[in-house]
């Protein structure tokens, strides 16, 4: 990491945002007073490190083409007050993927949003869901065991800021041998008139032989530019499995960093689908640490960007032990002046024999102004491995276009069909049928240009004074 400390002290100038962060932290130290000692210490350490490294910028290889340098000369409000519970979540957000019921958990402006007095629920099967702030007090053992221990790869200024500043987030604990039938859907909403930087922190812990399916939805519900900086730590115990779906459909003004780190134990399974449909600048970081033999990680993503949007997928897979499999498949269509970055990094350590690691990134550019940067890296120190990667940037297959048109399909439809087929390879990997159908539908609509943030937007720009009166009808999208 190239840090500020490497600079000549006289050149040590902080950016607007860095100054803003330092000032906020220094003047608000007392906020952390009710927390566990370990959290207070983690915040201090992260803050001190951040003061030295600053925020990453274009000179850092992993941020070279990132649009996030645009936020560094902006100021944000860092400590929003906890919003009162004024509306039922179902009044604010209505997800109606048919035949798919989820247990909805929500964060509003980064705060766990619930009518309950104590924002932490323990269910009959022992599953705990609720506010991470409450969890650190009520379940200190589980919390201490994992908090800050998983998100240790590719740490950068923003993740340090998250540790130093996070206000709240979601905590899920699934005990050993519990198979959670109902998917948990985490809805993160932003609704504020302030220009807010939201640092939320999630911790998900799966015990041995357990199963959970988690949907992580980022939706913004007003047009105010904001900066969402989320760190999620996930621990998957022995022989446990997690299906993680990330849906991103936020406004064009919002900057989103979604940094997810996973620690996988022996024979555990992780399946991730990242579906990015809209967003000003979205950076998805996925750090997967394969720490137990026989672990499998299946990481997939679709991104469909237009206008000046940017999506940046940073995927790091650490094969620390033998006999693990990882596969990455990220596909995207870039229209208008949008841009995509893919940086896949597979590290196979010396002892990680019998590793299988596959990595593929395919892109279609629709215009001469769209851009793609792809960096599929392999770093391999074991010899008995099968690793491969591939990356393509191109257009729809001309022969296929001609074939379809020869059968009487108009050019527009032929293009749509092919684009859809292109994206379908990833969508097909979604196991939950109603979700898959719904996402396929969203992808189709997105490709037809029918789904844009405006259609599903709940802002009612014509009547901005009632921003909370909305309903998102997923069946319409």
């Amino acid at each position, binding site marked *: 990491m190239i840090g500020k400390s490497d600079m000549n002290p006289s050149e040590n100038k902080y950016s607007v945002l860095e100054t803003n962060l330092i000032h906020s932290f220094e003047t608000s130290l007392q906020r952390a007073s009710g927390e566990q000692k370990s959290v207070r210490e983690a915040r201090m350490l992260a803050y001190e490190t951040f003061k030295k490294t600053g925020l990453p910028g274009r000179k850092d290889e992993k941020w070279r083409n990132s649009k996030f340098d645009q936020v560094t000369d902006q100021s944000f409000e860092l400590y929003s007050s906890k919003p009162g519970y004024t509306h039922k979540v179902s009044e604010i957000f209505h997800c109606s993927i048919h035949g798919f019921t989820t247990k909805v958990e929500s964060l509003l402006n980064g705060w766990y949003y619930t009518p309950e007095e104590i924002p932490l629920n323990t269910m009959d099967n022992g599953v705990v869901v609720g506010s991470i702030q409450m969890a650190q007090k009520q379940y200190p053992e589980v919390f201490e065991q994992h908090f800050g221990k998983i998100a240790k790869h590719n740490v950068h200024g923003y993740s340090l800021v998250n540790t130093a500043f996070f206000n709240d987030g979601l905590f899920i604990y699934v005990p050993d041998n519990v198979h959670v039938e109902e998917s948990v859907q985490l809805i993160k909403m932003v609704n504020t008139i302030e220009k807010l930087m939201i640092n939320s922190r999630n911790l998900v812990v799966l015990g041995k032989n357990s199963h959970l399916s988690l949907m992580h939805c980022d939706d913004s519900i007003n047009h105010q530019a904001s900066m969402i900086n989320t760190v999620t730590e996930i621990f998957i115990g022995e022989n446990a499995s997690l299906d993680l779906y990330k849906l991103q459909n936020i406004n064009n003004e919002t900057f989103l960093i979604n940094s997810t780190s996973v620690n996988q134990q022996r024979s555990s399974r992780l399946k991730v689908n990242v579906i990015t449909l809209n967003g000003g600048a979205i950076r998805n970081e996925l750090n997967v640490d394969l720490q137990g033999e026989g672990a499998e990680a299946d990481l997939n993503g679709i991104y469909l960007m237009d206008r000046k949007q940017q999506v940046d997928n940073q995927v790091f897979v650490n094969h620390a032990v033998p006999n693990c499999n990882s596969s990455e498949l990220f596909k995207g269509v870039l229209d208008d002046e949008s841009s995509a970055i893919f940086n896949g990094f597979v590290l196979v350590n010396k002892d990680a024999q019998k590793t299988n690691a596959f990595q593929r990134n395919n892109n279609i550019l629709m215009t001469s102004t769209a851009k793609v940067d792809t960096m599929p890296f*392999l770093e*391999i120190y074991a010899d008995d491995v099968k690793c491969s990667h591939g990356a393509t940037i191109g257009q729809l297959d001309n022969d296929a276009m001609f074939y379809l048109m020869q059968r009487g399909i108009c050019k527009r439809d032929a293009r749509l069909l092919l684009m859809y087929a292109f994206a379908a390879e990833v969508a097909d990997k979604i196991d939950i049928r109603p979700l898959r159908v719904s996402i396929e539908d969203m992808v189709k609509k997105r490709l037809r240009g029918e789904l844009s943030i405006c259609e599903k937007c709940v802002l009612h720009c014509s009547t901005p004074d009632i921003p909370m009166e909305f309903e998102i009808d997923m069946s319409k999208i």
Partner: protein
Amino acid sequence: MAEDKDQNNILEEVTSGEYKYGFYTDIEMDKAAVGLTEDTIRFISAKKNEPDWLLEFRLKAFRHWQTIAEPSWAHIHHPPINYQDIIYYAAPKKKKQLESLDEVDPELLDTFKKLGISLEEQKILSGVAVDAVIDSVSVKTTFRETLSKNGIIFCSFSEAVQEYPDLVKKYMGSVVPYRDNFFATLNSAVFSDGSFCYIPKGVRCPMELSTYFRINAANTGQFERTLLIADEGAYVSYLEGCTAPQRDENQLHAAIVEIIAEEGAEVKYSTVQNWYPGDKNGKGGIYNFVTKRGLCKGDRSKISWTQVETGSAITWKYPSCILKGDNSIGEFYSVAVTNHYQQADTGTKMIHLGKNTKSTIISKGISAGRSNNSYRGMVRIAKKAGNSRNFSQCDSLLLGDKCGAHTFPYINAGNETSVVEHEATTSKISEDQLFYCQQRGIDAEKAIGLIVNGYAKEVLNKLPMEFAVEAQTLLAITLEGSVG
């Protein structure tokens, strides 16, 4: 520095299978003082009787160099290089300008004989003209007269500066500017000699041109500079070979190769890099930091790089093509083998600027011992480079579980009519293939040599015949002792 040479030792070194070019020759040398200051540069420039503009160029580079730091992004590790501990100029002492081979120091002739390079034209493989560069200075260029009949200029860089200053001034630094990177800047300040080649319009060079580089003196760096210009419609195939004596300390080699291909010209540049790689325990060896770049300046021009990298303790090298002319073509074919403690970070850059430009990258990395072998390549397609194509195939083969094989492609595309494809695989040598060979009576070491040569064949096939055989032998030799 003059050591008593022991004839028996030399023979033994030459005949030992490990590094057969590890001998040292006692030649009377003319050297600069250790260290690098403006005075060193003035000394070099004066030695070479250079015009002022060239001294200025060197000084500008030197001043810039003092403000920059060694790059750290490559996947290589080495103790810090003390740039003040290097001799920047060492040349075989010569009393006057050489007129014929008879006047060449017999020790020197002997050196090249040992290297399998004869400087006597009649004994040379027919059809190869050689420029021999020893410790930064070109000692002999063969076949000059034959070439000059076709208007081809092939001489040492220093001669070119004296005799064709306009050509040198026009093209030097036009592809690799003096500010390009740390090592190129250093070279721009201290380069001592190298080869110069100019192929006039419409001329197809009738023979392979070749430069043979040799580091001989201890404690010296080698900083040569090659400038190769193919004018409109010209064609040339250029070969480059290199060796160095076996020494315990590391020696620095920081060279520049610039190629300019005008409209319709084609340049094929082949390298068999066999600098001393250090011993089995990683002691000694050449640090090879080289900037090679070709500019496809005119439409329909073509530059093709082929490299077989078996030597050097560290290789840091990215022969690149800037495809400026429309319909121009860039190619990069590479085999890099590392064994013991060698480190290689090598690849290419293909920068597509013109329309309908095409590039192909075929890279085969083979790692053995405790070595690390990285492919690092960039493909960039500019917005205006419509209808461009790139295909890259980068494969790595691992022999043993102590080595590393890494692939770092950077692909960057910005228009909707171009296609970029990159594929890469990493695997270990197939046990089935090994057993099959062994079942036919071939021992494991030979079998590996056979399989690896087969693996690299796609690239080896691109080499001119004379080099292909040498390269195949080298691959097998480099991997000796990598079994088990």
